[in-house]
């Protein structure tokens, strides 16, 4: 990456760093929340919202022409709330009451949160819902897009493949799926088979989705240049296929302590671990 490119994305890099620190602060404050998954998806969400890949109006949340965004990996709630708040959907101060009394910011994202469209948290719901939104847009002759961010381990849920079969068949060219391909579930890896806790294999994921009728692009999902590059033409795509982005990421990205390590799916760092994560992030 040359210096110009680097500066072009510096504002987003800084936002991603802010987001990770904010997520950590929120999680530590209540000793809850999925830190490593929020780190994994950070650049994707910053690009979508701060980078204005999504069309939205945070002052008119139900704007008819807004793109619909479904966080199918609902456990990533802690990672989208700061993004929504920073873009004006609700006050940043609300983040201080994450999971607290009177708050709508729960561990799993749901539609009482301004900017969240549906209830997720049980995996395998987002993509079927997205097909319904895609069809509704077709019926109403609306031009907005439906984005659905899924976890890769979420793809073990069979409902995704029911939805993928249908989406490919119906040629939903208004549907953009992004897989946060961090290669990890709760217990182990999806494709790096080292122990009985790993697997089953998901690969070849690209060929699987191609065979279901999707256009497939594979990127580094923690690099802004690749994220923006892969989504720059989403409103001018030719053909009649839904688009799937396999965004290769690292679970716990940004902290050596967390990155690609088992154990951290729902564990919040404390004490020395916390100091280490903070040091990792900000060094």
């Amino acid at each position, binding site marked *: 990456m040359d210096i110009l490119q680097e500066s072009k994305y510096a504002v987003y890099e800084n936002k991603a760093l802010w987001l990770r620190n904010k997520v950590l602060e929120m999680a530590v404050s209540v000793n809850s929340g999925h830190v490593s998954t929020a780190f994994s998806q950070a650049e994707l969400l910053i690009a979508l919202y701060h980078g204005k890949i999504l069309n939205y109006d945070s002052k008119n949340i139900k704007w008819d022409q807004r793109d619909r965004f479904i966080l199918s990996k609902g456990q990533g709630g802690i990672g989208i709330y700061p993004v929504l708040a920073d873009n004006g959907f609700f006050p940043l101060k609300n983040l201080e009451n994450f999971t607290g009394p009177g708050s709508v910011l729960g561990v799993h994202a749901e*539609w009482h949160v301004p900017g969240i*469209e*549906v*209830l997720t948290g*049980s995996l*395998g*719901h987002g*993509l*079927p*819902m*997205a*097909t*319904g*939104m*895609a*069809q*509704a*847009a077709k*019926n*109403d002759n609306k031009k907005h897009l439906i984005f659905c961010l899924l976890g890769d381990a979420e793809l073990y849920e*069979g*409902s995704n493949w*029911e*939805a993928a*079969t*249908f989406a490919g068949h119906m040629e939903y060219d208004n549907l953009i799926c992004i897989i946060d391909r961090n290669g990890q579930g709760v217990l182990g890896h999806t494709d790096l088979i080292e122990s009985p806790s790993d697997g089953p294999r998901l690969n070849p994921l690209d060929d699987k989705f191609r065979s279901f009728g999707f256009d497939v692009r594979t990127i580094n999902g923690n690099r802004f240049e690749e994220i923006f590059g892969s989504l720059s033409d989403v409103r001018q795509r030719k053909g009649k296929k839904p688009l799937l982005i396999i965004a290769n990421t690292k679970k716990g990205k940004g902290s050596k302590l967390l990155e690609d390590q088992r154990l951290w799916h729902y564990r919040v760092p404390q004490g020395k671990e916390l100091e280490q994560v903070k040091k990792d992030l900000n060094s």
Partner: protein
Amino acid sequence: MSDPKFVIGMRDAFFNALYEIAKQDKNVIIITADNGAPTLDQFSQNLPNQFFTVGIAEQQMIGMACGMAVEGKKVYTYAIAPFVTTRVHEFNKLCLGAMNLPIVNLGVGAGYAYDIMGPTHHTVEDITIMRSIPNMKVHSPADSSTAASLAQISYNDPSPQYIRFDRTGIPDLYSDKNVDFKSGLIKVKDGEDLCIIATGIMVHQALAVASELHKEGIEAGVIDLHRIKPIAKDILMKCIQGYPQIVTMEEHLLAGGMGSAIAEIFIDESITTPILRIGQDDKFVFDLGGRQAIWEAHGLDVAGILKQIKEKLILPIAR
């Protein structure tokens, strides 16, 4: 309609009525999981943007319905009853119930309607699980007139709903009567010695049982409880006031079914009138030979029900 005995099935009566609504409102959507019906063809042929088949993929059906309902559509999903209830319970819980969306699940083949098809197709726990979902309304029509009325009723109601239809061949109850279906229950027959509250096909069994009791000088009232959730409690209380004993009848597991719902009301309202709940015990049914054979084997035929009533209730003597 040349055969005077022909009665259109509940499902088809419903779809015909719904078609008239859907013609006027393009936001009415039907999604089927590879289940057809002669009366469904008019949707696919004439309203192609309002009819979708997702294949045998019920999770996709409910999830898609959710996505469309969020966008302002009134969505009806359709499959054999077990596949829009037990098969997709979690989708129903979250997409219909928790999100409180205007989706109506249509299940055909309530109870043992798919008699010889075995436990995979029997649907005798759907009342229990569907009424356990907050916001969900549960309809259980006993005839095609009731089923047809539910098209407009369900369309007008933005709540998530489940309608359990029987198959074809169920006798008519109300086509020649001026009945108001809105309250969710209908007093079908008067009688002061006991009151039978029945739902679905068991309303017909209840009338047959009442007829047999009449021969013995015992007069049973019969109530068709065609909306199981919510139950119109005040109206029901008025209907059963003064009865010395109550019988509930359902072609459904006793655990959590309609009789349980009535018993819950009795407990909550401190009503001490004895209740006899008639339904299926805690078991799966593998018996073949048809619905009547299943009823006979499990005490749900008229003779079996009479036997239970006589053994377990204090009936009037010397009438």
